[in-house]
């Protein structure tokens, strides 16, 4: 089972773990991304995730397929939340099972790194100061634009 989903609701990693386990697997690696209370010196109160779902699902599924092609794994699943999240909430979860631990670690790392860079999902932080901002966006406001003028 190779799966990528976007969820508007919270979910239980334990349930997903049960779907990934199988007798041929000797290793299971998971990653949980949590909402942190600070970013670049600002105190964060809550987050909002937005996704371009049609393309996010396509790109997410491509990444999962790449991981299963690169590494000999059995099952892999990634779920990304959208909507309003509080500090400590689970924002993204990756689980991988494999015959042995090494490929499970590598595939899990590959998946989360690629998801962060490629899937069209955006994060808006709301700060204690009353400000808010889209992460990776305002911060790069003064850099050159890579698209034609």
């Amino acid at each position, binding site marked *: 089972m190779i799966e990528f989903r976007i969820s508007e609701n919270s979910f239980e990693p334990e349930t997903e773990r049960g779907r990934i386990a199988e007798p041929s697997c000797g290793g299971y690696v998971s990653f949980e*991304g949590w909402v942190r209370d600070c970013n670049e010196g600002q105190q964060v109160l809550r987050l909002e*995730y*937005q*996704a*371009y779902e*049609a*393309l996010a699902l*396509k*790109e997410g599924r491509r990444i999962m397929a790449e991981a299963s092609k690169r590494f000999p794994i059995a099952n892999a699943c990634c779920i*990304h939340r959208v909507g309003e999240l509080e500090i400590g909430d689970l*924002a*993204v979860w990756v689980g991988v099972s494999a015959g042995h631990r090494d490929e499970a670690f590598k595939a899990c790392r590959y998946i*989360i790194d690629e*998801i*962060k*860079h*490629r*899937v*069209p*999902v*955006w*994060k*808006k932080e709301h700060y204690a100061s009353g400000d808010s901002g*889209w*992460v*990776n*966006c*305002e911060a*790069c*406001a*003064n*850099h*050159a*634009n*890579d*698209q*034609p*003028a």
Partner: protein
Amino acid sequence: MNKLNIQYFAVLRECAGQDNELLETSATTPAELYAELKLRHKFPEMATVKVAINDEFGDWQAQLQDGDSVVFIPPVAGG
């Protein structure tokens, strides 16, 4: 003139003040279209913007067709 369906996300949605719009435009490529929208909606300068045409990553110089759905993708921040 092409009639295009533009969808907005994240910072661009806030600048445009809407989730999507139907636009009749003389822009023939995403690059021309972005320049037009950037001026009208006062989009900020950003390091990397990508474009999607009909829900697939596209080229800035692709020829837009009547009825195409276009999305400009500001720097992503998942995870």
